């Protein structure tokens, strides 16, 4: 029996799993949230709220399909309004999930095992929200398949030199690989759920999803190889997705878009907002479902440090933009900086600098990194800040280009706001269902963190 359940804490840091857990208590604690915990009134009320948000999205999109994009605030010169701002914001949020699941897996950061499952779920739902926006922005969304290369009666082919076509490939690959990675990670846990389920119906559902997983050593061996290779493939993929998104801007010649710093600056910003979203979700979830044993103070603190680091890279990006505005001597670039600071959107720019650069600096202090309330608030501020960053990049640049005669102003309409708020509703609806339907923490990966799972001495007893 696994009687010795004390975890030796080699260092003075808070452990990844609270002491006292065994293989079966981990499975029990995580699977019981789905299998036996009754549906609470709070869950139902919350679900009603977020589900109405999702229905608002349906209304906004339905009206959009009837009337066209004229219901939005976009017009020439600002043809890329909320749709593109929200697309870039959502897809950036998704990046933390893949970073946690793939990059930290390759770097053997075992603390990721408690948060990778729901971070990956977050990625999927965020990318689904992101994908809606370019589709809705298309004007004739029912013709979306024209973007894919397929033999057609128009004898037309996509222009592979266009960043917008690259985007189609990058985002659809990202969604597919994230889904596959998530599902592969879930298979052994489906087997645990199948074996723990009490009702035949539930057992059948998880049994179907587990596909007959029986934990054979041969299977595990191939499984681990496949998982590691998927992580290896997903790592360059996640870095490429926001790079390609930034090409949508950087390949254009509009001032404020046409810069080489965009790819790394976008990727850092994506991870920044993604970790902010992870914290915004993890802090309430661990409190409500009593998962403090698995998502410990250490996870929150480490995520806060990642946020601080990526936030500084983003700050460097802002600094470089300002520096190049001055150093290049290009009148349009320097006007862009002047316009950001003093133009009609100056309040948004000031808010952006405060939310993304100044306020998060308090994370240097441990007090803020370990206090869940403060951390949640700072993460929320970062999310707002990163949304404003995309707003500044998209709208301010387009509103003031090279000719005064083509200047314009952008005002979002209520339909813009409804669509944006609606995707938040859709995202939260998906999260709401996820925590009740699937094991939100990887059970088998947490088990490998227990010292009893290691066999180093036994391996020497070879005959």
């Amino acid at each position, binding site marked *: *029996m*696994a009687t010795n359940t004390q975890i030796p804490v080699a260092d003075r840091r808070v452990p990844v799993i609270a002491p006292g857990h*065994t*293989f079966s208590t981990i*499975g029990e604690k995580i699977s019981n949230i789905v299998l036996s915990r009754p549906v609470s009134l709070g869950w139902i009320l919350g679900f009603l709220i977020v589900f109405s948000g999702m229905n608002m999205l349906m209304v906004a999109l339905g009206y959009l399909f009837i009337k066209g994009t004229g219901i939005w605030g976009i017009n020439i010169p600002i043809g890329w309004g909320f749709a593109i701002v929200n697309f870039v914001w959502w897809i950036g949020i998704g990046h933390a999930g893949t970073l946690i699941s793939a990059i930290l897996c390759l770097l053997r950061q075992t603390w990721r095992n408690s948060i990778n499952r729901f971070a990956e779920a977050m990625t999927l739902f965020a990318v689904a929200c992101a994908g809606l926006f370019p589709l809705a922005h298309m004007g004739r969304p029912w013709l979306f398949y024209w973007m894919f*290369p397929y033999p057609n009666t128009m004898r*037309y*082919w*996509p222009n*592979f*030199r266009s960043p917008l076509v*690259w985007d189609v*490939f*990058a985002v659809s*690959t990202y969604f*597919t*690989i994230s889904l*596959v*990675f998530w599902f*592969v990670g879930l298979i*052994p846990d489906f087997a*645990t759920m199948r*074996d723990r389920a009490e009702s035949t119906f539930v057992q059948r559902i998880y*049994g179907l999803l587990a*596909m*007959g*997983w*029986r*934990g*054979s*050593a*041969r*299977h*595990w*061996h*191939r499984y*681990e*190889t*496949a998982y590691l*290779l*998927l992580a290896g*493939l*997903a790592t360059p*993929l996640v870095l*490429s997705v926001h790079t*390609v998104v930034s*090409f949508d801007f950087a390949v254009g010649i509009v001032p404020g878009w046409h810069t080489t710093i965009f790819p790394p600056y976008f990727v850092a910003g994506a991870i920044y907002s993604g970790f902010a979203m992870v914290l915004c979700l993890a802090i309430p979830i661990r409190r409500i479902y009593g998962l403090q044993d698995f998502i410990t103070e250490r996870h929150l603190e480490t995520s806060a440090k990642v946020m601080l680091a990526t936030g500084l890279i983003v700050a460097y990006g802002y600094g470089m933009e300002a520096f190049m505005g001055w150093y290049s001597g290009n009148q349009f670039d320097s006007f862009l900086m002047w316009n950001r600071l003093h133009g009609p959107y100056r309040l948004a720019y000031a808010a952006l600098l405060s939310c993304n650069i100044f306020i998060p600096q308090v994370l240097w202090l441990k007090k803020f990194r370990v206090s869940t309330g403060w951390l949640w608030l700072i993460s929320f501020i970062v999310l707002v800040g990163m949304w404003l960053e995309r707003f500044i990049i998209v709208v301010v640049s387009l509103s003031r280009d090279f000719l005064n005669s083509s200047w314009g102003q952008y005002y979002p309409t209520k339909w813009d706001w409804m669509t944006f708020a609606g995707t938040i509703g859709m995202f939260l609806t998906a999260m709401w269902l996820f925590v009740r339907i699937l094991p939100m923490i990887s059970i088998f*990966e947490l*088990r*490998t963190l227990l010292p*009893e*799972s*290691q*066999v*180093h*001495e*036994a*391996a020497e*007893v070879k*005959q």
Partner: protein
Amino acid sequence: MNVKDASIYGLMAEFDSAKELVAAAHKTHAAGYQKIDAYSPFPIEGLAEAIGFHKNSVPLVVLIGGLIGGISAYALQYWVAVITYPVNIGGRPFHSWPSFIIVTFELTILFGGLSAAVGMLMLNGLPMPYHPVFNVPEFARASEDKFFLVVFASDPKYDAAQTRAFLNGLAPRMVAEVPS
């Protein structure tokens, strides 16, 4: 002389810890049993080697999948941009390879990733809804906190009585027959 019973799939031994399972797997393999398998709730380092499993073709499948994805993506773009639908934009070359890299890269990842998942499942013979090991009631804890070793009846060295005696000698919690 081995007596084979077609209704028996093998003999299953249950262990309490990963260490015991790996040690037992080593001993069983060293005793000359070839057709054995071990089951655990999580991956155990060295267990696959202990039961004599070395051939892992997943990396090859992924390599082939990735190459197919990359090559076909580049070929498609070349064919579209140079042969079937050339568009002259300011006299720039039709074969503008730098702009083809991104789609090539993305499809390499897509095909490689899909081959990793599908290849792993197919090599493992999954999905497989029925398997004899599930006939043993204790096996439900193979996804929980117990560790199992099975010697298949198809093993040339298998003998109902001798193999049972051998497995009992490994100090398991229990030894059970697996009906097929």
